[in-house]
């Protein structure tokens, strides 16, 4: 049986709080060890190679983020990334005297 690999752009939701961004991506068919998340020169890249199907997508981050600060989890074909905001990207509350 011949299998042709399909490369897909995963559907992604982006959420934001004061402290972090959260990316949620649909990546059915892939397992934990097949997912690769990298941050390089302000671009966050998701790549998942599941054999018969692969996913790839990149996002330019609004601010500089260290790659090791990104938390990644995979469950039920859904990849969840939490990217903490650096202090300069968080809203600053000015105290009124």
């Amino acid at each position, binding site marked *: 049986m011949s299998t042709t690999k399909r490369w897909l752009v995963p559907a992604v939701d*982006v959420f934001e709080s004061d402290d972090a961004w959260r990316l949620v991506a649909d990546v059915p*068919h892939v397992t934990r060890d097949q997912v690769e998340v990298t941050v390089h020169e302000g671009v966050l890249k998701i790549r998942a190679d599941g054999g018969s199907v692969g996913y790839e997508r990149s996002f330019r981050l609004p601010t500089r983020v260290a790659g090791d600060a990104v938390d990644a989890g995979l469950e039920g074909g859904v990849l969840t990334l939490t990217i903490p905001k650096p202090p300069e990207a968080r809203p600053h509350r000015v105290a009124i005297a």
Partner: protein
Amino acid sequence: MLVDWFDSGTGVSRVPSMWQEMNALLGALERPAHTAAPRLSVHTDDTAITLELTAPGVKADDIEVEVTGRVLEVSVSREPKAPEGFRTVRQERRAWRIERSFELPFDVRADEATASLEDGVFRLVLPRVPKAEPVKIAVRSVAPQIAAEEV
């Protein structure tokens, strides 16, 4: 490589204007097909019928399967929600509900069906009731009647 930007859905004031220009530019580009829609495939062979549905984020409780005679009914749904404490910036993962009814090409053993939900893929295997094989009947040689009379 296509690089996406976080769209400035709600936080416009926090986004530099260059971002908005880039967004407008990227918005004009044609985007490849996303995985927002579920993919359903049905495969039949001599031993079973296999149904496979991409269902990322779907829980076992969101799946219903019913076999009545030669009719298979499948219903699956999902409803992605914003995580608590977060506001939505971009939403591509759609809520959907699939209700499909299939007429099976052969009788199946519904009591031996196996259903699994793994890595966001729902798989249902319905084994086929074995086809009635022609049964060979051994023919014994019976002593002719005439011989019996002789005894």
